C-alpha cells in the first residue's frame, strides 16, 4: 500500500515539474500580453494628442527623462568604468594565453556594445525607475487618484503612461550609448596602463569592430527594453486594488518580471541579429 503511494508520488514529479514549467511560460506570455495591451492604448492615445496635450506630454516626458537618464548618470558612469576595465583585464588574460592580444579592442567593443551595455543599463533602469514607476502607479491607483484624474477629464493614458513609455525609450537609448562610450574609455584606460596601446590604435580597432549590426543592436534593444520596462512596471502597479500591503509585492513582481523580460528579450534579439 505504502509502496503504491510512494510510486504514485514519484510518477507525479514529472507532471508537477511540467506544470511548473507551464506556469512559468504562461506568466511570461501574460507579461508580454499586458505590455502589448498597454502599448496599443499608448499608440491610440498618441493619435488623440492635440496641440496643448502634446505640450503637456512633452513636459511630463522631459521630467521622466531627467529622472530616468540624467539622475542615473553617476551610477552608470561608475558601473561603466568598472565593467570596461574589468572586462578588458579578463579578456586580456584569456587572449594573451593564445597570443592574440591584437583582437583585444574588437572583443571588448563587441562584448560591451552587443551585450553588457544594454543589459546593465536595463538593470540600472529597472532598479531605479522601474520600481519607482510601479510604486507611484500603485499608490495612485490605491488612493483613487487615477479615477479622479479620469473623472476630471484628464486622459490617464496620455498623462501617465505615454510620457513614461516615451521617456523610457529615449532614456534607455541615451544611457546605452553613454554607458558603451564610458565603458570603452574605461577599458582603454586599463589597456593604456598595461599595454603599449595608443588612443589612435584603440579608436582604429574600435571603428573596425563597430558596424551596422552593433548600431542596430543598440537601437533595437533600447526600443524593446525602453518599451517593456516602464509598461510592465505600470501594469503591475495598476493591478493593486485593496491594500497598501500590496504595494511592495507589486514592486517586487514588477522588478522580477522586468528582469525576466530583459534577459529573454536581450537573448532573443542577440540571436536574431548575430546568429
Amino acid at each position: 500500500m505504502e509502496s503504491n503511494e510512494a510510486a504514485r508520488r514519484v510518477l507525479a514529479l514529472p507532471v508537477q515539474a511540467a506544470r511548473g514549467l507551464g506556469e512559468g511560460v504562461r506568466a511570461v506570455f501574460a507579461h508580454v500580453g499586458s505590455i502589448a495591451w498597454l502599448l496599443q492604448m499608448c499608440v491610440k492615445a498618441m493619435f488623440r494628442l492635440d496641440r496643448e496635450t502634446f505640450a503637456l506630454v512633452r513636459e511630463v516626458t522631459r521630467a521622466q527623462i531627467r529622472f530616468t537618464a540624467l539622475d542615473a548618470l553617476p551610477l552608470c558612469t561608475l558601473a561603466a568604468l568598472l565593467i570596461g576595465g574589468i572586462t578588458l583585464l579578463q579578456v586580456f588574460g584569456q587572449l594573451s594565453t593564445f597570443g592574440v592580444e591584437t583582437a583585444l579592442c574588437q572583443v571588448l567593443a563587441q562584448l560591451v556594445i552587443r551585450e553588457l551595455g544594454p543589459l546593465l543599463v536595463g538593470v540600472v533602469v529597472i532598479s531605479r525607475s522601474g520600481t519607482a514607476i510601479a510604486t507611484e502607479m500603485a499608490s495612485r491607483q490605491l488612493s483613487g487618484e487615477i479615477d479622479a484624474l479620469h473623472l476630471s477629464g484628464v486622459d490617464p493614458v496620455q498623462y501617465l503612461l505615454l510620457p513614461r513609455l516615451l521617456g523610457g525609450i529615449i532614456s534607455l537609448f541615451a544611457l546605452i550609448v553613454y554607458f558603451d562610450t564610458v565603458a570603452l574609455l574605461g577599458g582603454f584606460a586599463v589597456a593604456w596602463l598595461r599595454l603599449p596601446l595608443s588612443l589612435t590604435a584603440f579608436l582604429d580597432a574600435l571603428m573596425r569592430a563597430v558596424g551596422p549590426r552593433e548600431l542596430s543592436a543598440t537601437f533595437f534593444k533600447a526600443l524593446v527594453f525602453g518599451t517593456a520596462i516602464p509598461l510592465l512596471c505600470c501594469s503591475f502597479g495598476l493591478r493593486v486594488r485593496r491594500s497598501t500591503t500590496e504595494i511592495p509585492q507589486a514592486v517586487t513582481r514588477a522588478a522580477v518580471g522586468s528582469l525576466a523580460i530583459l534577459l529573454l528579450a536581450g537573448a532573443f534579439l542577440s540571436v536574431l541579429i548575430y546568429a
Partner: protein
Amino acid sequence: MPEALLALRGAALEAPGGGRVFQGLDWELKAGERWRLRAEPGSGASALLRLCAGVAQPAAGSVRLAGLAPDVDRRHPFVAAGGLGWAPTDGGLAMNLSFLENVALPLRFVRGLDREAAREEASRWLDLAGLGRLKGQRPPVPAERSCWLASLARAGAKGSRLWLVDRPAGELDPAAARAARNLLAEAARDPEAAFLVVGGDWMEGPVRELALVDGRLAFGSGA
C-alpha cells in the same frame, strides 16, 4: 422634455464582501436641477456617487451618464469633455502636484488652455475656494477639507455641467463653508448646471431633497 444628465434605473450596488449596499434605485437628474442627498455617514452616499460616476459598476439595473453607461476604464465623451464635476471626500487630487497644478491640469485637457492661461484660471477658482495662500503647496496627507475645496475649484474651473459632490473630510469652519457656498453659487450661475450634493447647506436657491435610507432613495418635499 430635456434628456436626463444622470439616470438610475433599478440600480443596485454590491458591497465588496457580498450583500447589497442598495438596490432598486430609480432617479433622474436633469440639467439645471439641484439636489441635496441626506444620508447618515456609512449609509452608502459615497458609494452612490461612485456608482453615478462609473467608479463602481451596478450589480443590477443601469446607470446612464449623458445617455451612456459610465465606466472609469473606458473613455466617456461627457467625462472626457470635462462635463463631470467630481468632488469626493478626499478631493481625489494628485499628491505630486500643487493645488494650483491640480486645478490647472484638467483645463489643458478639456479646454485646451496653455499652461499660463490654465494656471490663471485655476488661480481664480482657488481664490474663490479660499485657498489662495495654499496654491503653491502640495495637498496634505491624509486629505483635509482643503483637498475637498480644491476639488470644487477644479470642477468649477472646467465649467462642469454635472456636479457630484460628496461631504468634506471633517467639519468645515465658517470661513471654509462660506467659500464652498460662494464657489457653488458661482457654478450655479450656469442655468444648465446640475448638482447632487451630499449633506451640507452649501447650495443656495431652490434645492430638492433626497434621502438614502436603508439602501433606498426617499424623496423629500424640498423646494
